[in-house]
Structure formats: structure tokens, C-alpha cells
């Protein structure tokens, strides 16, 4: 599988973080803020917010100069160490949500190995949108890009001028060609040196012969080029919270056979479960990392619906994930981590005489590991009279106590996600149609029940204030029963379009 890497760029990380820490006391976004750092013996602008940039300030400008230029400038000292630690915490947060392999990309970014993770979010683009939205809600400006390599994604997140960038697989060269050399993560003086003989873009550097280039500028530019074009691997060392229970093993001889991998994975799981037992914890998720000899780290993740430390069950779940792990030329290190482990709770059996519920968390975890965590659930009732809003998904381990669905009004076995328009022959406004045509077939209504009037929920949207629908259960001459409704009360145009729809089929 081609590696897919997400790079998150936080252009305003220090000021965004400051605003987050000050919370309500934070000045308005229009206030120019600069962060002072030291260049030699001079205090200079190391970072600034958008307002300060608009006021005409530049990075590297002397602080004394800046305060003279912009009245009302808010000045803070850059806290590089604090920013770095906060970035580590942000990486842990992203690790919990998105992928086992996440690392801080200091000073102002994150790198996420999204290989095999994007489908859980409905595709790469949706995953990037999700990341950007969540960061946005936390008050962080971000641009994100996904590409085949860390270097490529890093460059695109910072220089593509798009908030979200999905580089198609295998087309990195074209995407990178026009970007400036500074996108290559090279030291600033090297970029300047390269600019002298006329190298401005990555494409130009890529097109020039590598031998003379290495001779003149050293191996750095070529290494960065190869990394950006995914020709040379660049491992992403995942972050760990210091308290995360872990188990690791290093192999003298790289292993690769699936059976061997499974055997060591099982042994490591037993070790991890012993650690968990010492701590009195149960795992809520387990991340497995496979360090390959070619410097790539493959990963797999399982989630548990309830805290668990049953080694045989967890090992089985992990071994099922092995098929997504490509061992390449061999694996020389294996690490298991249980982030977010929680105290293990023992549930008491239900009251004496009551029926004991079977523990299905093992089944739920197994299915969730195979089909994805969103694919295993229960359906509970939601407080709404509208049929399409009356059902909500809940986690499969949560057992709904009761439901509020009507018992007297029959509900169809199949409910169409989108109601289908039908053509009807209606006789009276408050009667069901005498016949209707659905999917090209005309059906005569033999018997009918209804109407069951459902009103719009004005507290959800103003437009629903006057709306209503009339539902009927109708039976055709063959005995097939359908749930149809009229959008509106049949008289008042404000109550709906008065058109008829097929909502579902009874069994």
C-alpha cells in the first residue's frame, strides 16, 4: 500500500495558543500581537498574528522599530519550549482521533500517517476537512495537505495556498514542481545559496543533474528532494504520552512471515496485559507499530468498547489486523501501546432472579475491528414525531432503556432513506388516494388506514412552523402494504406541497 501522509500546518500556532490560554481575557483578533525572540543580541519579531502583519510588520523586524510603527501593539515573549510541549499534547490528541502514527512537526505543525485510516472518515478529503474543522473549533488556524510523503505533504500544506489539499497518489512531482525551494525543509542559508545559480522552484532543482548538485551543495538538497518525492522513506516516530502502558521487542534478525509476526504479536500482547494488570487498568484501544528495516513504520489499531485486558481476545483482534500490515523486507522492532487505558470495571450481575445479559463486548469489538467502529451500533429512539428523525444510532455497548416509538400506529419494515414521489388519484382532501403509481406500476388501493398527522418541528427550523404531513397505511389488491404520505394537510398551501410520497413498505 502506498503510504499517505497528512501534514498539518498551524501558521499562527504561538498566537492561537496564547489566545486559547487567555480565553475570555484575550484581546480581539483585530489587536496586533507580536512575539519577540532573539536574533543575536537584538530583540526581533519571531511571530505575529494576522492583524500585526496587516499593520505592515515583518518577521525579523526589530521590536523597538515595530512598537514605534504600530501604536497599541501587544508584545509577548516567544515561549518556544512551551509551544513545543503544547504541540506534543496536540499530537497526542490527534493520535487519539485519527491515526496511531502521529508526531509533532515542530515548530508549527503535525504529521499524521493516514495510510489505511482515511476510509474511517469517509475518504481523504473528508478526513482533512474534519481535522481542519476540529482545529478551527479549538481556535487554531490550520491548513492541511495529504500526499505520498511527509516532505510532499509538508510542502503542500505550507505553500499550496489552499486550506485543504489532496495530492493524488503517485502524482507528487507535478504538484511540487512550482513550489519554491524553501518548501523543501532546507536551512535558510542553503536556500539562499541555491538561489544564486538560479534555482527557484523544486521543479528546477529536480531537473538538474544530481552529481554536480551534490558536489557543490552537499547531500542535503538531494536527500530532501528524494524524501519529498517519496523515493526515500522518512519514518514518523509516533508520540506517546509518558504514562501510556507499552510493550516493545527488538529482533536481532528482521521477521516477516505472517505466522512469526502473529506469534510475537501475541507474546507482546500478553506482556502488555501484564503491565495493564499491574496498573489496574484495561485498554480502550491498542496501537501496534511495526518498525521496518527500510525505515518505515507500519501501524495497526484496535478499539475496545469496554476496558479490557484479556490477552487472548486482544491478541486475536490484533492478529486479524496483521493482513493490513506490509512487512516489506522485514520488521526489526515491534511496539504495542495502550493509549487512554482506563480503570477496569467489573459489572455486577443483575439482581437475583433477573435474567443475566450475555457479555457481547467481545463480539462488538471483533466486528468493529473488521467493519469499522461506525458500522456496529444499536438504534434507539429519538424524541421526534417525524419518522426519519425518530431513530438515532448509539454505541452497541450502550443498552437503551426504553423507546418512545408509537406502538399503536404500525410502522413499515423497510423505510426508504429518501421518500419517493408517487402519482396519485385522490378523491377527497382528507382521504387516501384511490390509486397511485410508484416505480412505474399502478396500484389500486383496496383498504387504507389513516391519516396519522405529523407536524413540523418549529423549534428545529422556522420553515417547519406551519408544516404537516398525513401518513396512510394502504393495501393494494395483491395484499402488499405501503406507507405513503402527503406533504401538507391537503388544503392549506403553507402546510406543504400537497404532493404524495412513498415512505416505506410493510412486511
Amino acid at each position, binding site marked *: 500500500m502506498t503510504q499517505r501522509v497528512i501534514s498539518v500546518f498551524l501558521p499562527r500556532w504561538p498566537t492561537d495558543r496564547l489566545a486559547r490560554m487567555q480565553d475570555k481575557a484575550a484581546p480581539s483578533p483585530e489587536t496586533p500581537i507580536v512575539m519577540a525572540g532573539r536574533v543575536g543580541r537584538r530583540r526581533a519579531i519571531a511571530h505575529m498574528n494576522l492583524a500585526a502583519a496587516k499593520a505592515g510588520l515583518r518577521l525579523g523586524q526589530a521590536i523597538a522599530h515595530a512598537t514605534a510603527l504600530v501604536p497599541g501593539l501587544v508584545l509577548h515573549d516567544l515561549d518556544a519550549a512551551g509551544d513545543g510541549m503544547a504541540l506534543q499534547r496536540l499530537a497526542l490528541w490527534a493520535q487519539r482521533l485519527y491515526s496511531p502514527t502521529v508526531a509533532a512537526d515542530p515548530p508549527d505543525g503535525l504529521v499524521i500517517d493516514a495510510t489505511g485510516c482515511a476510509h474511517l472518515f469517509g475518504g481523504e478529503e473528508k478526513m482533512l476537512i474534519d481535522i481542519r474543522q476540529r482545529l478551527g473549533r479549538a481556535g487554531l488556524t490550520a491548513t492541511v495537505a495529504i500526499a505520498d510523503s511527509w516532505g510532499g505533504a509538508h510542502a503542500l500544506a505550507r505553500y499550496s495556498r489552499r486550506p485543504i489539499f489532496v495530492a493524488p497518489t503517485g502524482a507528487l512531482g507535478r504538484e511540487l514542481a512550482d513550489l519554491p525551494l524553501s518548501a523543501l525543509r532546507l536551512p535558510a542559508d542553503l536556500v539562499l545559496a541555491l538561489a544564486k545559480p538560479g534555482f527557484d522552484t523544486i521543479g528546477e532543482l529536480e531537473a538538474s543533474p544530481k552529481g554536480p548538485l551534490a558536489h557543490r551543495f552537499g547531500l542535503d538538497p538531494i536527500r530532501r528532494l528524494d524524501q519529498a518525492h517519496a523515493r526515500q522513506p522518512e519514518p514518523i516516530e509516533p508520540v506517546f504520552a509518558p504514562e501510556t502502558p507499552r510493550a516493545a521487542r527488538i529482533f536481532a534478525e528482521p521477521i516477516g512471515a505472517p505466522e512469526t509476526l502473529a506469534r510475537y504479536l501475541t507474546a507482546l500482547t500478553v506482556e502488555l496485559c501484564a503491565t495493564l494488570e499491574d496498573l489496574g487498568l484495561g485498554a480502550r484501544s491498542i496501537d501496534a507499530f511495526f518498525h521496518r528495516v527500510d525505515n518505515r513504520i507500519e501501524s495497526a489499531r484496535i478499539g475496545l468498547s469496554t476496558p479490557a485486558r484479556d490477552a487472548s481476545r486482544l491478541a486475536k483482534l490484533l492478529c486479524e489486523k496483521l493482513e493490513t500490515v506490509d512487512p516489506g523486507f522485514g520488521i526489526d522492532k515491534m511496539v504495542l501501546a495502550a493509549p487512554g487505558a482506563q480503570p477496569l470495571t467489573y459489572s455486577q450481575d443483575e439482581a437475583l432472579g433477573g*435474567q443475566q*445479559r*450475555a*457479555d*457481547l463486548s*467481545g*463480539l*462488538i469489538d*471483533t*466486528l468493529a475491528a*473488521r*467493519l469499522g467502529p461506525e*458500522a*456496529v*451500533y*444499536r*438504534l*434507539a*429512539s429519538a424524541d421526534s414525531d417525524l*419518522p426519519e428523525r*425518530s*431513530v438515532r444510532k448509539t454505541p*452497541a455497548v450502550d*443498552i*437503551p*432503556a426504553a*423507546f418512545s*416509538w*408509537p*406502538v399503536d400506529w*404500525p*410502522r*413499515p*419494515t*423497510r*423505510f*426508504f*432513506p429518501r421518500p419517493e414521489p408517487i402519482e396519485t388519484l385522490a378523491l377527497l382532501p382528507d382521504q387516501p388516494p384511490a390509486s397511485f403509481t410508484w416505480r412505474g406500476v399502478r396500484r389500486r388501493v*383496496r*383498504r*387504507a*388506514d389513516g391519516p396519522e398527522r405529523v407536524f413540523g418541528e418549529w423549534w428545529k427550523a422556522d420553515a417547519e412552523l406551519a408544516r404537516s404531513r398525513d401518513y396512510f*397505511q*394502504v*393495501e393494494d*389488491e*395483491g*395484499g*402488499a*402494504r405501503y406507507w405513503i404520505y402527503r406533504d401538507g394537510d391537503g388544503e392549506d398551501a403553507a402546510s406543504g406541497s400537497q404532493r404524495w410520497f412513498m415512505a*416505506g*413498505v*410493510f*412486511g
Partner: protein
Amino acid sequence: MSPRPAPAALDALRRKVRALETQDRATRAVLPFGVSALDKRLPGGGLSLGALHEVAGGAEEALYGAAAARFAAGILARAHGEVLWCRRQADLFAPSLAQAGLPPDRVIFADAGDEAGVLAAMEEGLRWPGLAGVVGEVGRLSMTASRRLQLAAERSGQMAIAVRRWRRVADAADLGQPTAAETRWRISALPSSPLPPSVPGVGRPRWFLELLRCRAGEAFDIELEACDAKGHLRLPAPLAHRSAGADAGQGRAVA
């Protein structure tokens, strides 16, 4: 000249073969329908718990499998425990399941991307004890796939129900292909039970129930009223020789 085998030895051999055939079976428990016209024609007096059963809809029902799904829900409503419902299309309406006797606390849904995923999820579910049964909505059901389900069901003693559902009515011809299922049912809608002429509305739904295949039993068909809120079927009034409620409440599994 070899001596003729003694009948006792032959009996012993038969017993041995029988033991081999059934050694993996947890139990031969059955779940009666509580409708004697149905139960007395099924081997063991009901649907085997540790077995795969197939349910399909006739005519247009082949597309929606609505009656088939309700029939399956009704059966499992009378069994004890939770139900795993594996599906590809998320159009099963939970309020209707609750009305067929499967409230939200008894159903776990698993959405698989394709039919192979549905079958794999069913098989996984059958391995976990404590379920009342596993339902899967599939179109194609190969001999191999059904055999795996049947074996998994036999081993754990849990009921597997394949609700056959096709994308086109023509594909329903697939129902003729042999599978390893113990029983195969087809359900078609009939005009509902008549109400008194002065009463408007739709009567209790009625089904034409065909048992197309039954291992160690005979095929038959019967007209029944669809299952109620507790999963009980009922003979239509003119056909019933006695009150349907007499033994309808004893629908629990018996060994």
C-alpha cells in the same frame, strides 16, 4: 463364506455413524411457532435453534424482503437473548422491529460493505454464545457460504437466519439453487384479514407461507396471519379449529 452381520452389530454401527454426524451439535433444541398446524409438520416440532434457515419474499417482496425480515424478527422475538442483524442497506426501520417484538435493547446492527462482509459478520456472530440468533440480509448464498453458516450455527447452538433479498426480481431465481440451510421459506403478502364491512382500515396482514425445503421433513404451504407484537403467528379465523391463544404464549425454546 463370511458370517452374516448380526443386526446388533449393524445397530451399533448405525449408532456410531449417528454420533459422528452429530458430535459437534450443541443441542437439538427447537423453537416452536406455537401454531400447531405449522409445528406438527416440522421435524422436532419447531425451527432448529442450531441451524441456518432461509427466508425469502415472493414476487416484489424479493426486492424489499420486508415480510421476510418481519418473519425473522418474529421468530427471534420469541427466543431469548440479543440479536445481531447484519445488513448492507440500512433501510430496516427500527420502530417496526420493536413492533415485531425486538425492542432496541435486543438488536445490534452490523453494516457490512458487501455480501461477503455480511456473511463473515454472521459467522462471527454465531461463534459468540449468548445471542438469540443472527440475521443476515443477502442476495447470493453459495453452497460453501451456507455450509459455513450451518456448521457455525450447529456448533454454538444459535439460530442463523438468512433473509434473501435481491436487487432485481429476476435475480430471485437464485432461490432454486441448493444451499445447506435446514429450512427454506418463501413469504408472499395476501390481502389482509377481512374486517367487518362497517369498519374502515387495514386488517391484520396475512401471509402465504411456503416451506420450500426442510431437511428430514416435507414441504408444505399455509396461509397465516402475520406475526404480532410478540412475534406470534396466528391461523386466520375461519381456518382455526380452536382459539389461537391457547398455546401461543409458550413460545420459548424447548430441548
